[in-house]
């Protein structure tokens, strides 16, 4: 399973990437594999304040809808309108074109508690057994 080493992760299968003062957020390869046929995505409005662990986006597969949680607290600075129009991008390129939104963190210390690639890899390995 693809777990890029430079990213940070959550137990709920989001990834976070530092880009300047922002964290860009998406879902992991493991999550898109489980979700499978993604047909609808709702991204948060720019300017919205989110708390760590709060549902910030929604991904719907053919079978069900899933909440995507904010990995850290802060303000939504960007959201990916292209992925809202073409949700398959998450299935095809979850770490690239399939990014969902970006946050300007308000509690920088929260980011230090995110999982490393190694820790996340262990987590999904354990879940598989």
């Amino acid at each position, binding site marked *: 399973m693809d777990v890029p080493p430079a990213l940070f992760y959550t137990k709920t299968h989001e990834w976070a990437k530092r880009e300047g003062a922002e964290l860009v957020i998406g879902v992991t390869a493991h999550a898109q594999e489980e979700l499978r*046929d993604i047909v609808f995505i709702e991204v948060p409005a720019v300017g919205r304040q989110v708390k760590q662990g709060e549902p910030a986006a929604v991904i*719907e597969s053919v079978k069900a809808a899933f909440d995507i949680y904010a990995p850290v607290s802060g303000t939504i600075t960007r959201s990916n309108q292209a992925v809202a129009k073409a949700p398959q991008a998450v299935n095809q390129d979850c770490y690239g074109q399939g990014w969902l939104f970006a946050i300007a963190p308000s509690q920088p210390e929260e980011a230090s508690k995110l999982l490393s690639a190694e820790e996340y890899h262990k987590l999904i390995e354990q879940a598989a057994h």
Partner: protein
Amino acid sequence: MTAVGLKKTALHDRHRALGAKMTDFHGWDMPLYYTSILEEHRAVRDALGLFDVSHMGQVLVTGPDAEATLNQLVVSDITQVGILRACYTMMLNDQGGILDDLIIYRLGAEEFLVIVNCGTHDSDVAWLKARRLSRTTVTDVSEGRSILAVQGPLAARVLEHLLDAKVAGLGRFAIAPMRTMSADAGIARTGYTGGDGFELFLPDQHARRVWDSVLSQGASVGARPVGLGARDTLRIEAGLRLYGTDMDTSTTPWEAGLDWTVALNKPGFIGQEALRRQKQQGLSRHLVGFELTQGPVPRTGMPLYVADHPEPVGQVTSGTYSPILAKSLGMGYVQAAHARVGSTLTLLVRNLKHTATIVKMPFWRPGVAHPTLANPPSGQRSIESA
């Protein structure tokens, strides 16, 4: 791993070997999908899909009074069903509520094969046995037998080659014995996808063989195994109701929009008086089909609203995304005053309003070119011409 106590079909090892994602469907460990619901859906529309639907029950009703027995238990006129022909119908309770929807195949003057849903299998058999007339035998023959559905535009070609039988000449809703295979094997031109296709009723050992050969012989033309996930999305696209979801004992055939199955003036059948009464009084609600050109997927149980009405006017029973039409589709019961084709419903999903339009079902028909296929969205076209 298989959850303890789940029933397995004769093809269970095939599903596991193919890497299917399995699901508990009314106590059966069944394939939900093998690779992707949407890909399997497209395979059925474009080429050929193979389904294991052996969880459904097979019941033989035989004897001099078999026809009369069935005719008093179902809404359709069974006397009008010719030998080796089939009929889609339903059994009602005294209140006109739907106990199950059935396909009944007439195998002979005094012999019928009744296909029942797996969730109502036991109650249907008990109902048939308790109400059978004197010279009638009801036999549950499901054990040791399978049902395969071979569906899609290439189904006739592949099966004709494979079975060495003249299946292409079989009429819609006709059934033929396959005596060269087995004394009790049959093939019918029926299915649950809305397109062309066949269902095979077979002893288990033959089902395994046919399963393997359809997949190997059909591979070059795009045949693939299809799970219950795509079975659901295909049947919704075709406007076909699902028992337990779009209809149950709280709904009548009138409300479910299945009037065409009812022979109201045939001699007495269970539920007839209730249906007459409801027809006189008028209906308070109808099952409608609706579509959303953009927005989320309607899910079972979601309330449906209309403008300027604080209270819901209905509820979603089924919903999906159609990869063929590129729209979200749904079915639901809506108050009669708001159930007109062309009128607008509002779906409230996570506090956002989404507009749905009531349309005539089926949403999709075989052979009808759909605008989204003929005219791809402009974005797609520019990629192709680039």
